[in-house]
Each structure stands twice: as structure tokens, then as C-alpha cells.
């Protein structure tokens, strides 16, 4: 963003007129009711965890649903900021309203870190299994923790940096608002030097977030998935986990934007353009989801080694088949068929409904992958027997619901701490747009600064 394209004081203050942001500052009774309900469900999740804990750390199959919930949180909330970071580097004006709602999910990282720590106790050390760490003197637990900590910190820094102009713009003075933590705006005055630094910082942190998330998901998929199953040698699985996360992260963002639009009073800001852009992105990611799954499947299917046949039974065609079929329908068949249809893709409701399918499918997919991987207890070079399929017990259901509620709760809290929209980016978008007359038609022209 060249310095001269940043909002002027007048433009900024008009964009931030109290009437514009008022709806977001109001936290009505429904907001607090939601907070209370989510807190109750989250407490049930904590109860489920304590229940599980009492049965000990050694019963690895019992922790499968806990791991699946963590993977789901990682795939959705932790991935959502990446969507914004990536689109900031390449996409057009439609991405501006989604920037902050996506980056606010970085807050959920705090919950993710807490959720992750018990998993380190459940999974055995890499000395007893094949792993990407080989004979590394530093245990995989340390690598995993460092990777997650860096990722979460990077996400929070990205969120903070991107919010700084809005925090400093004293939006806290809007009526009905307790006050954004203005001191966090530090000495931001919006001079050209500060904007230049902000621009550079967003590019560096955005690129960093993409790299750290790729690394973290790669090692997570390897240590908590692949290496628990002897003979599961699938170099594509980490990439599949990432692509599937991108799909689920975009879906979560789409649903969140819809909720903010409908009940957050942001109808004027989050418009059809944004949902159209997300619909297109979801279609591409849906195709990629299938491509990555298929690329892995066809090699195992063709290879036909005994362990490969057993692995296919374990994850696709054995007792897990109904679950897999459901995943295939929810993550690929329905989204593909619906989004292929232009009127559905170019609407608000279409991408939102598809996103609900994708989120449900991804949750089931994580259950399919991680409860199965955690259920394998045999050691050796290759898997020889199919382990029993584990259905969820009450503690598992509490844990699953608690995880989802925890994510929503943390997000709602985050919306009270920082401005929900990136007003400075939206204002900048308005400045960069103009109209031009061709004959009888007025068309929208958009400037793309370097």
C-alpha cells in the first residue's frame, strides 16, 4: 500500500462514524445468552476431559475423539487467519470485509494450545515407532509444542498489527461501547512511515503464518496420525490435512461472516461480493480436497501390497465405510454439485449452506482419521490386523461438544476485545475504487497498488 493511498483523516473518521460501528458495540441479551450457553457446554467438555483423564493416559484408543476434536479446531479456527493472510497477498476488493473476522480466529489459538498439551501425554515417544524425527535427540513433543506456539503467536501478532490503526482510531468513544483497549494502539498516528511498516509487517507475518501453519500441520499429521499406524507410509497425508483444513477454514469463515452479517449488524459491510468470492474459493478447495484424497487412494489401491489393502480397509472400505461415504458426500459430492451451479455459488445462502456441509464433513473426517489411527495399538513394521472401531461414549460426546463450544466462546470474547471489521482496509478499498463511463454504462474501476 503506497503511503498516499492510505485513508485521510476525514475519510477515516467518516468511515468510522459511530453510527456505522454502533451495531457491533451493542452486546444485546442474545449475545450474553449465547455466551452463557456456550460456557455451559464448554464446561461439559472440561468435565468430559476430566472423566477421560481419570481413566488414564495409557489407553490411547480412548483419546481418539479428543485428538479428532483438536485436529478439527486446528483445521478450522487455526486455519481461518491463513485465508485472510493469503488473500491479502493476491485477491481483489471482495476480501476486505473478511480480513478481521478471519484473523480474530487467531484468538482461538489460546484454546488450541491448552487442548493440545494433554495429547503429548497420550502419544508414545517416537523411539517406539517410525517418525519423521528419526533419531532426533529432541523429543517430538518439544518440536510439536514449539511449532504450535510459534504459529499461535504469529497469528496473534498478525491480528494485533492489522488491528492497530482501528484501535488507535479511538473507536472506543462510540456510544454504548465500554471501550476498546486504546493503549494497545501504542503511539500509532498513521504517518507514512508507520503505514509502510504496517504494510511490510502484514506481508511478513502473513507469509510467516502460511509457512508456520504448513509446518505445524505437517508434523501434527505425521506424529499424531501416520506414525501411530505401522506401515502407513503416505507422504501426501500431511498435505491432505492442510488442503482439507483450507477447505474447512474457509467454510468456518463463511459461516461466521453470515452470522456477523445477520446478527452482528454488519449487513452494510459484508456484502454479496464477499460471499461470491468465498463461493469460488470453496469450489476450488472442494476439487482440491477430492484430488488430494484420490491421489493417495489410487496409489494404495494400485499398489495392492497386503499392508496397503489393510490400510484401505482401515480408513475407507472396512467397518468405517459408512462414515467415509458420509465424509465423501459432505466434503465433495454436495459442495461440488451445489457450487457448480452459478446461481447458488453467486448467492449468500448457497456458500453458507455448503459451508455447513463441509464443516460437518470435516468433523466426521477427523473422527474417521484420528480415532482410527489412535485405535491401532500393535507395533511392528506393518499393520497386520484391523483394530475394533470405537464408537463415542458420553465423555467423547462431551469432549466434542465442549471443543466446538470452546471455539465459539473464545471467538465471541475476541469480538468484544477488538474491532470486528478492518475498517481501515475497507476505507482503503473505497478510496481505491472509482467509476468510469463507457457510452451509457458506468463501470467500476479498481486500482491495485503495488
Amino acid at each position, binding site marked *: 500500500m503506497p503511503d498516499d493511498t492510505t485513508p485521510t483523516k476525514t475519510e477515516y473518521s467518516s468511515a468510522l462514524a459511530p453510527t456505522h460501528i454502533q451495531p457491533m458495540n451493542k452486546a444485546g441479551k442474545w449475545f450474553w445468552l449465547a455466551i452463557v450457553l456456550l460456557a455451559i457446554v464448554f464446561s461439559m467438555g472440561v468435565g468430559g476431559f476430566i472423566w477421560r483423564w481419570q481413566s488414564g493416559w495409557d489407553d490411547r484408543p480412548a483419546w481418539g475423539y479428543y485428538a479428532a476434536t483438536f485436529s478439527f479446531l486446528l483445521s478450522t479456527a487455526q486455519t481461518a487467519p491463513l485465508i485472510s493472510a493469503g488473500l491479502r497477498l493476491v485477491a481483489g476488493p471482495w476480501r476486505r470485509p473478511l480480513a478481521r473476522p478471519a484473523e480474530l480466529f487467531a484468538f482461538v489459538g489460546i484454546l488450541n494450545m491448552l487442548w493440545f498439551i494433554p495429547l503429548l501425554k497420550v502419544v508414545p515417544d517416537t523411539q517406539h515407532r517410525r517418525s519423521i524425527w528419526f533419531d532426533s535427540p529432541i523429543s517430538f513433543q518439544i518440536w510439536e509444542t514449539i511449532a504450535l506456539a510459534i504459529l499461535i503467536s504469529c497469528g496473534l501478532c498478525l491480528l494485533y498489527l492489522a488491528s492497530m490503526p482501528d484501535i488507535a482510531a479511538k473507536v472506543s468513544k462510540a456510544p454504548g461501547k465500554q471501550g476498546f483497549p486504546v493503549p494497545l494502539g501504542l503511539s500509532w498516528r498513521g504517518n507514512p512511515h508507520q503505514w509502510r511498516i504496517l504494510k511490510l509487517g502484514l506481508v511478513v507475518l502473513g507469509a510467516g503464518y502460511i509457512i508456520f501453519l504448513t509446518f505445524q500441520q505437517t508434523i501434527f499429521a505425521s506424529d499424531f496420525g501416520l506414525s501411530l499406524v505401522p506401515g502407513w507410509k503416505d507422504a501426501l497425508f500431511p498435505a491432505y490435512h492442510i488442503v482439507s483444513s483450507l477447505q474447512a477454514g474457509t467454510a468456518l469463515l463463511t459461516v461466521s461472516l453470515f452470522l456477523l452479517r445477520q446478527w452482528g449488524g454488519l449487513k452494510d459491510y459484508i456484502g454479496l461480493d464477499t460471499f461470491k468470492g468465498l463461493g469460488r474459493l470453496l469450489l476450488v478447495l472442494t476439487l482440491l480436497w477430492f484430488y488430494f484424497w484420490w491421489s493417495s*487412494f*489410487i496409489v494404495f*489401491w*494400485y499398489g495392492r501390497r497386503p499392508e496397503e489393502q489393510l490400510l484401505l480397509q482401515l480408513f475407507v472400505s472396512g467397518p468405517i465405510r459408512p462414515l467415509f461415504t458420509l465424509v465423501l458426500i459432505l466434503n465433495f459430492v454436495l459442495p461440488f454439485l451445489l457450487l457448480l451451479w*452459478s446461481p447458488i455459488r453467486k448467492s449468500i445462502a448457497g456458500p453458507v449452506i455448503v459451508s455447513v456441509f463441509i464443516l460437518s464433513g470435516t468433523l466426521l473426517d477427523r473422527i474417521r482419521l484420528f480415532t482410527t489411527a489412535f485405535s491401532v495399538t500393535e507395533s511392528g513394521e506393518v499393520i497386520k490386523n484391523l483394530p475394533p472401531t470405537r464408537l463415542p461414549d458420553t465423555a467423547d460426546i462431551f469432549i466434542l461438544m465442549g471443543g466446538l463450544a470452546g471455539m465459539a466462546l473464545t471467538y465471541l470474547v475476541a469480538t468484544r476485545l477488538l474491532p470486528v471489521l478492518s475498517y481501515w482496509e475497507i476505507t482503503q478499498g473505497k478510496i481505491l475504487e472509482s467509476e468510469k463511463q*463507457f*457510452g*451509457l*454504462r458506468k*463501470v467500476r474501476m479498481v486500482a491495485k497498488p503495488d
Partner: protein
Amino acid sequence: MTDKQVLGLCRDADTTARAVEALEKKGFSGNEYEILTAIPYPEGTFGEKPGKHRLYIFPFIGALCGFSAALLLTIGTQLFPPLVTGGKPILSIPPMILIMFEGTMLGAILFTVIGVIFESRLFGPKLGLYDRRITEGFIGLLITASPERITEAEQIMAGAGIADFKHSLTGGNNK
């Protein structure tokens, strides 16, 4: 009676738009005029209505044809003769999916191209009344109507600022 054609040429989109507006006011319908340009102006630049087309149907029909052809081909080659290998089913589904995918896409692409040629009426080298200056940036306003209406159309176009005209009786020449 044979329709006549007149082609008005000018450099400016605004002038053409004015001429189209004036023509429509005098009762000329969208079927009676065509605008010829060297570049695709945004829809509605000349006040024209977006044309209806069935292009989107073509890839679907093509995909269906391609899929069916690939399905028949893959099933056929496996069933004649039906050799059982290692106790596996005769029809090997995953390879069939791959070939059917290619067939589907090929069908869709072929039919899309056929569709655009058909829907754009690109049926051959004949151009009708045309002027090669159009590809140099001139905008052509081509009227096809009865002889008496043609004179009226020319006057309207001239009134809107178009000064350069070409005429043709039966579809015109190609100079």
C-alpha cells in the same frame, strides 16, 4: 421484400450509444441493429440488452456424451473378453473413473467450442456488410431493415453524429 442493410461507422462509443438510443426511440428493435466493435465493450455501453443464449447447456450435454462414451469404452474393453485376473472383479472401477473423467472433460470442452460457434453464428467466412476499419477501432452500427426504414435509420444515425455509411442490398460485400 428483401431487407436492406446500412452500416454506420464512427470512432466514438458515445456517438454510437446516442445513435442507438435515437434508433430505439424511433421504434427500431434490438433485432434490427447490431454493433460491431474491435474490442468487447462492457455490456450495456450502447444501451443494448444482453442477448439470451444457451451456451451453458452445451458443456453439460458434452459432459454427458463424453461420460457415456467413456463408460461404454471402458466397460466394453473389459467385458470382451471377460478375463478374471487374480480373483478380482472384471470391471475395475478406479481406472474406469480416470478414463471417464477424461472422456467427460473432453466431451464438455468439445461441446463448449461447438456451442460458442453455433451460438455466435460463426458459420463460415461470409461477413455480410462489413468494413475492415472495424478491426482498426471503428465502431460499426449495422441496421438491417426494409428499404424505407433504412433511409430513416441513416438519417437518425447522421443526426446522432455518424458521418460514414456503407450500404448493401442483399447482405452486402466484404470490402
